[in-house]
Structure formats: structure tokens, C-alpha cells
């Protein structure tokens, strides 16, 4: 029986995991990163569009700052986010861009002088300032008041991931590729690492660590139609759930992106709309201004996706052999812009559709895109219920996205949370009381249990086909737990998923190899994914309101009076067929921005009784502090700075707000 010891075990080699690894290693702790694939192949690479950070270098970003980024993010979340965490995030995002700039990311830069851009379908000339020349540029994205999305042409995620991965190599951090954590080692109160399966040899190894971090990304593959990579199956999240102790937050909050290509579901970046692309229907009519006169194509993703499906339901979709779709028209941006700034869009249309987006419209329809929910953590990234277990990035519910994430905030979260949680993990490992004293019996017992499960799959007498179970689950999720939800369909989905979960306990394999065996992998993964799917479907069934991306036809209003709370799902016993749900209240009286209208989407919602009181209180504070600067006011409304690790505190310099002493 093989046991590997380390200080920090990171499960997932994307941006969040790599950044945590670098942070902990630089503080002197040994780190091992586990990755299903070579880390540069992680799904982080797919973030084409950009990373939000309020640098305010471009003229259309003038006046932007952390306050506006904060408000955009909270409104985007439909008030589901933890506002203190959002503050930590928006204040660190500019530092993250600057760190990556120093580490070699070739961010697109501002060029002084005039340039033509497309805004609201019109060509407009804007003039960039001399003093901004050469600084990191920003583009427009959905749900933001200012141009705030920093980018590297159309390969932002790729460039960030390669720089980060190379930094991990520079820091001599070992990445154990083609390994998969299949269970956490814990005693009900403390996490000690994980049982890991080598995907090539099939060998099980126990990795024992002081701190374990889950950074395995989202679970898009619960759905049949998704933009997510094949490996985004949520297994690291599921093994946290299977502890029965760690909770998953808001798993019903699932984002659907408006413009994946139809029918393959491959993502076309939000940058296509941010740079001026329009959505059109079967009649060639630009329909978004009819629904969203203010933000139009650039309302938040949940709103645009719903409007698109609503429009198709009205009979305005374009018919095709695969079903209906709408059009994305970027022809107005011109050949040079498309082939330079949106090259990835051009390539995807060219290779997968045989369409030239310079001349032709592109068929698009919303598809699953992002998992807002995940391993529930406190602001340090640690599970409040399982000591020593941390999480960051899409896998986590930290929770800065609430019920809808803004474009450009996901790749930003990966590195920002990686920086912050990496520091907290290092602090955790520094403290002597966190040294581990693990009974070897516990390690051996976990290993034996996991080996027995695999043996049963290989040698048992089950008959169920894992690939068929997977396909059925994905179909149910896409058909019944999608953009528009109803009590009846969700109830059906829950019952059908439970039936699948039962069946998944008697899987039989056609291919019985113990080493590299894709069918065995599908088998143990589908057992775990069905539990996640039930967290999503049952959470959605129970939440009788609409909030952000979670939309109930039978409860179309956001209901702050009853539902201003975070769903917490745990899986108490291996034989359960449903998660146990509990709720964590969000406190209006502590909010810097109390619930209100988002500025787009539905205007009617049910207020929380405390909201008027908090608004009044904020009004009083603002009156008392009349004339004070924004930092003083912010601190009075919701102090957060002491929550940040010391090295990431402090203001962010801008060309319009140069710092004298760096404070």
C-alpha cells in the first residue's frame, strides 16, 4: 500500500489550483498538484473573453473602480453573493492582473488616439488617452457599467493558464498528471488528503496532507448540452459531498451561456457581443432591445439566455434539422477585427460549422456553461464543517457569484481566489496545531473501501451500462433542469435521477481491465455525478422562487422574504437517494448593497422586511459622512479589509488616482 506525504494536496491543475500551489510553495510548504490531464489542457484555457478588473485604463472604463465592480457583481448575482467576499475579490482583481502582467501574460494594451468601435450597432470613434498608452486594455462585457474586461486578444484563458503553469514549473511544483482523487480521507471532522487512482496503471495511492484543496472546476457534464470540457464532470466536488460532512452551496444555480454554436455547444465568447455583435431571429430582426431596452445584448447572461428561449418559444426561432436556433451577427465588426480580436470565434465557426462569420450569421442557442455552486467555504476558502479541506475557483461556493456569474468574473475568480486561499492555506500549514497525527488505520480503511468499490464494478454481477446511465442523466438534466424550470418537471427529474442512482449501484462492465479503462472511469464517475445532479435538481425543486439563473415558471418572482439564503447540501449516508438540504441566511442588515432591481430583467420581486430599514440606515450613514471619500464611506458600510491576507491589502493605483505612498 503506497502512501505519499505532502503539506498541501491540490486536486485540480487549472488556474485556481496552480495559483494556490504557487502561493503555498513560496511560503515554504511542499505541494503536490493532481490533474486528470496535463495542466495546460485544463478547462481554464477555454476562457476566451477576458478577466474583469477595474483598472480603468481605456476611455470607456474611465471612472471605473472597485465600488462599481462590486455593485455590478452583486446585482449580477441577484443578491445571492456573499458581499464581503465580493469586496475581497474586486479589491484583489487589479492586483491579480498586475501580477500576471509581471509574470508574462501578454495582455492586450491600450493604443493612444482614435479608434472605431461598434456600440449598439453603430460605428463610434473613441479616443484613448495618451497617459493610458501601453497599459492593459479593457473591453465591454455583459452586466457591467464600464468597460472592465482585461483580455489577451481572444485567448485570455490560454495565455493565463500557460503563464501560470510555467510559473508552477519554475517553482518546481510537481504535477501528478493523469491521476484522479476518488475519495477524501477524513474522520468526520478533519480532512487528511485523498485516495487517488492513477488513470494509466489503475493503482490506488493514498496522498496524506495537512491541507487539501479542491480546485477541480465545474460540473457542466451533468448536462447533455454544455460548453464545458469533457473533463468538467465535477468529481472533486462530488468527493467532498461524499464525505457526508462538507456541504455544497447553491448547486441549483447553473448558468446557461447565450451564444454557444448550435448544435455542438462549443462556446463563442461573450466578447463577440461585447465588441458589438447582435442577436437576430428567423426574420433577421434584432430582438434584444424589445426585451431589454437598456442593456440589450449585454444584459447579464441569465437574462439574455432566458430572453432568447422566450423568443424561440414565440415561434421566432430558425428551424433546422437539429431543432431551433437564433443568429449571432458579427459581420458589422469587419474582417480585420474578427480575424484579429475574435480569431477563436472565426476558427470555431470555420472548423465546426463551415461558416465564415465575416460574411455570414452564426447559429447559436444557450447551453449549460457554469456551475455557480460548489464546495461551501468561508472567506478563507476552508470548509466550515471539514477542517483542512479548502476549495477555490469554479469548484467552490466562496461565494462571489450567487445565482448568476458575470462574464469575465470566472477566470478572475480563479486567480484571485488562488492568491487569497493560497495565503490562507499557507497560514493554516504554519500553525503548529494543524500538524497532522493521522492513524494509519484510517488511511488503510479508506483505501480498502475504495478498492472494494472498484472491485465490485469490475467483478460484480451487475448489468447496467455506465455510458447509458450517463447519457440518460445528461438528457434529464438538459430537458428538465434547464433554463426554464417548473415544480412538475423538477419533481419528475428528481424521481428519474433517483431511479438512475439506484441502477448505478448495479453496474456491469463490458471491459474489465484494472489499468487504463475508460468504461471503469465512466462507471465510478456516473455514480458520483448522479449525486451532484440530485443536489442540483432537488435544490431547484425546493427553492420556490426565481433568482438569477434559477428560474421557476411557477414562482417567477425573486422572493427575498423567504429565500435570501444559500442552499447547503450534504450527503449523509452512502445509501441515501437524496441530499439533505439546509439553509444559510444572508443578512440584509450587514449588506453594503441591499437587495433591489438589478437594472435589467424582471422588476418585480418580494422584498425582505429588513431591506427598507437597511436602506434607511445606509442613507443616514451617507448623510453623516457627507463629503467623505469613497473608501471611508465603504468602510463604514461594510468593513472587509481585515478579512484579506495582509499581503493583498491596500488600494489599487489608476492613472486617474495615482498613489503617493502606496497606501
Amino acid at each position, binding site marked *: 500500500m503506497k502512501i505519499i506525504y505532502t503539506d498541501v494536496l491540490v486536486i485540480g491543475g487549472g488556474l485556481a489550483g496552480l495559483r494556490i500551489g504557487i502561493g503555498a510553495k513560496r511560503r515554504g510548504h511542499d505541494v503536490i498538484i493532481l490533474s486528470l*490531464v*496535463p495542466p*495546460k*489542457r*485544463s*478547462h481554464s484555457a477555454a476562457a476566451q473573453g477576458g478577466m474583469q478588473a477595474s483598472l480603468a485604463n481605456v476611455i470607456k472604463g474611465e471612472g471605473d473602480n472597485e465600488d462599481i465592480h462590486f455593485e455590478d457583481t452583486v446585482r449580477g448575482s441577484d443578491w445571492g453573493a456573499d458581499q464581503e467576499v465580493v469586496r475581497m475579490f474586486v479589491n484583489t482583481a487589479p*492586483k491579480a*492582473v*498586475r*501580477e500576471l*502582467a*509581471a*509574470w*508574462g501574460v*501578454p*495582455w*492586450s*494594451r491600450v493604443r493612444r488616439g482614435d479608434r472605431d468601435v461598434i456600440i449598439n450597432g453603430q460605428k463610434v470613434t473613441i479616443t484613448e488617452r495618451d497617459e493610458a*498608452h*501601453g*497599459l492593459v486594455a479593457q473591453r465591454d462585457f455583459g452586466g457591467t457599467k464600464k468597460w472592465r474586461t482585461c483580455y*489577451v*486578444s481572444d*485567448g485570455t484563458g*490560454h495565455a493565463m493558464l500557460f503563464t501560470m503553469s*510555467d510559473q508552477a*514549473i*519554475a517553482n518546481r511544483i510537481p*504535477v501528478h*498528471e493523469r491521476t484522479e482523487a476518488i475519495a477524501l480521507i477524513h474522520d468526520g471532522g478533519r480532512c487528511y488528503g485523498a485516495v487517488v487512482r492513477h488513470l*494509466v*496503471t489503475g493503482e490506488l495511492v493514498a496522498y496524506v496532507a495537512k491541507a487539501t484543496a479542491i480546485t477541480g472546476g465545474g460540473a457542466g457534464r451533468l448536462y447533455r448540452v454544455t460548453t464545458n*470540457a*469533457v473533463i468538467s464532470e465535477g468529481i472533486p466536488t462530488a468527493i467532498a459531498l461524499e464525505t457526508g460532512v462538507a456541504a455544497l452551496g447553491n448547486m441549483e444555480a447553473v448558468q446557461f451561456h447565450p451564444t454557444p454554436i448550435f448544435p455542438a455547444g462549443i462556446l463563442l465568447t461573450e466578447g463577440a457581443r461585447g465588441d458589438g455583435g447582435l442577436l437576430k431571429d428567423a426574420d433577421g430582426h434584432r430582438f434584444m432591445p424589445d426585451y431589454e431596452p437598456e442593456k440589450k445584448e449585454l444584459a447579464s447572461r441569465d437574462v439574455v439566455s432566458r430572453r432568447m428561449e422566450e423568443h424561440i418559444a414565440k415561434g421566432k426561432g430558425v428551424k*433546422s*434539422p*437539429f431543432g431551433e436556433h437564433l443568429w449571432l451577427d458579427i459581420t458589422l465588426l469587419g474582417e480585420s477585427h474578427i480575424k484579429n480580436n475574435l480569431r477563436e470565434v472565426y*476558427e*470555431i465557426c470555420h*472548423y*465546426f*460549422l*463551415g*461558416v465564415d462569420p465575416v460574411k455570414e450569421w452564426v*447559429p447559436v442557442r444557450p447551453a449549460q456553461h457554469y456551475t455557480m455552486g460548489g464546495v461551501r467555504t468561508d472567506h478563507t476558502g476552508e470548509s466550515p464543517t471539514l477542517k483542512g479541506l479548502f476549495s477555490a475557483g469554479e469548484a467552490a461556493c466562496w461565494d462571489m457569484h450567487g445565482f448568476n456569474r458575470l462574464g469575465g468574473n470566472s477566470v478572475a475568480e480563479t486567480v484571485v481566489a488562488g492568491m487569497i486561499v493560497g495565503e490562507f492555506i499557507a497560514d493554516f500549514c504554519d500553525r503548529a496545531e494543524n500538524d497532522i497525527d493521522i492513524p494509519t488505520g484510517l488511511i488503510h480503511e479508506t483505501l480498502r473501501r475504495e478498492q472494494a468499490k472498484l472491485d465490485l464494478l469490475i467483478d460484480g454481477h451487475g448489468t447496467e451500462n455506465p*455510458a447509458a446511465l450517463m447519457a440518460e442523466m445528461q438528457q434529464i438534466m438538459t430537458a428538465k433542469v434547464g433554463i426554464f424550470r417548473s415544480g412538475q418537471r423538477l419533481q419528475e427529474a428528481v424521481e428519474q435521477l433517483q431511479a438512475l442512482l439506484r441502477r448505478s449501484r448495479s453496474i456491469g462492465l463490458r*471491459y474489465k*481491465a484494472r*489499468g*487504463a*479503462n*475508460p468504461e471503469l472511469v465512466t462507471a465510478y464517475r456516473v455514480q458520483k455525478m448522479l449525486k451532484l445532479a440530485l443536489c442540483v435538481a432537488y435544490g431547484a425543486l425546493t427553492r420556490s422562487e426565481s433568482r438569477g439563473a434559477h428560474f421557476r415558471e411557477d414562482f417567477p418572482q425573486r422572493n427575498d422574504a423567504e429565500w435570501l439564503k444559500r442552499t447547503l447540501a450534504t450527503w449523509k449516508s452512502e445509501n441515501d437517494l437524496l441530499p439533505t438540504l439546509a439553509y444559510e441566511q444572508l443578512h440584509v442588515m450587514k449588506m453594503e448593497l441591499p437587495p433591489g432591481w438589478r437594472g435589467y430583467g424582471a422588476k418585480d420581486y418580494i422584498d425582505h422586511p429588513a431591506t427598507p430599514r437597511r436602506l434607511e440606515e445606509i442613507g443616514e450613514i451617507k448623510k453623516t459622512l457627507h463629503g467623505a471619500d469613497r473608501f471611508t464611506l465603504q468602510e463604514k458600510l461594510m468593513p472587509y479589509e481585515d478579512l484579506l491576507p495582509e499581503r*493583498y491589502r*491596500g488600494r*489599487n*493605483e*489608476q492613472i486617474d488616482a*495615482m*498613489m503617493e505612498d*502606496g497606501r
Partner: protein
Amino acid sequence: MKEPGRQGRQLKISVLRFNPQEAGSAPRMQTYEIDEADGMTLFIALNEIREKQDASLQFDFVCRAGICGSCGMLINGRPTLACRALTKDLDAEISLAPLPAFELIADLSVDTGKWMRGMSERLESWVHMKEQETDLRRLEERMEPELAEKIYELDRCIECGCCIAGCGTLRMRDDFVGAAGLNKVARFRLDPRDQRSDEDFYELIGDDNGVFGCMSLLACHDVCPKNLPLATQIAFLRRKMVAVGLK
């Protein structure tokens, strides 16, 4: 969308099968027959074969959108990305083999990760900074927009390994850094944030396993799925390294 594939075709996909982990496994060709569907890619076809015909078939896909570089393989002898190979652009008989030059995992799956990490360690493919700590609260260092674009142009390599698999030099020299490696050096050489000089780079690639080993057969350039300007970059780098060597 525009051009529905020739429906009704039956594809014969022959795969070079071999699993070194499995006792008694020997290399062999195995042919699968599959009905072509509209818009079918090799990603779709191979997954269908694995689900319905042969659960043991091994291959690697991750993003299935042409951006992650996982699915390089030989399609009718040519190294390329399988995820974006539309079957309608291929004959009905298709042959697939794993990329040569990399350690075989099984069937179409090879260990590009190990090779690429080795290359990165050897060439130290990261910015060698002046100072280890940057004041993150301050404005970022400026860079000319054109230069940022030029760096990104070379930074677009996805390490898929197609250039390595197509490289003639590598057949003779196991330790040749390949186009992927030389392109990295070109990328960091261009980057003013990297403090290394041409003398430093010469230490890394100034020999026959580096830029002087290249025989300019240029298959790397022809097969690169990202259309990186590999031939130009290698030629340019060679000139710069000759200048150092003659000093």
C-alpha cells in the same frame, strides 16, 4: 449548418491498437464501421464507437473545441487535432494512429504532458524577472500594443505535439527540442520582461539538439493547427544564435 454532410455514408475507421499495460497486447489495426451523421467530427465518431462498439478504446479529448491540444493524432498519416476534423472532409476510409515521438499510453493516447514539461524545465520557459516581488498596488509596466500582439502571436502554441510528431530531426535526435521548444525561446526572447540575453538562450539551444539541429524540413510549420510562423521563427532564431556563436 450550411453544408449538411453526405448522409448515408458508412465510415470505416481503422485504429492502430496497442496497450503496453496489458499482458499479451500487440500492435494491430482494428476497423470500426459507423454511420456518418451530419456535422460529425472524429470526436463524435470515436466516442460513439467507444460507447456502442468497444469500451476498451483509448483516446484523449478535453475541450473538443480545438483549443486545449489534447487530441493530436495521425489522421491518414498526418498529425492534427481530431476534435475539429469533420468526417465530411475525409474519405470514407479513415486511418488513425497515435502521435509518434511521445510515450504511448494506449491506442491513440500518448503522454505529451511529460514531454512538454521536460521541455519547459529544460528551456526554463518562463519570464526570468528582474525582481521576484512586484508592488501589485502600482500601475503595471507599460508595453507597446504591437509588441504585446507579437508576443501573443507566439504564445498561442497549445503544446499539442503535432510539430514534434511531424519532425524529421527528432527521428535522429531524441533530445531535439523541436519546434514547440524553439518557438518558446522565440517567445521569451521577444519579451522585454524576460531578463535573459542571447548568450543565455545560446546556452539552452546553441547546439545540435537545439536550433542548429533543425534540418529545415518544415513539416512542423505545415502541420501546426494554430498556424504559428514556425519556419520564420526558427530561421530567425538560428541567425541570432549564429551571431552569438561567432562572437
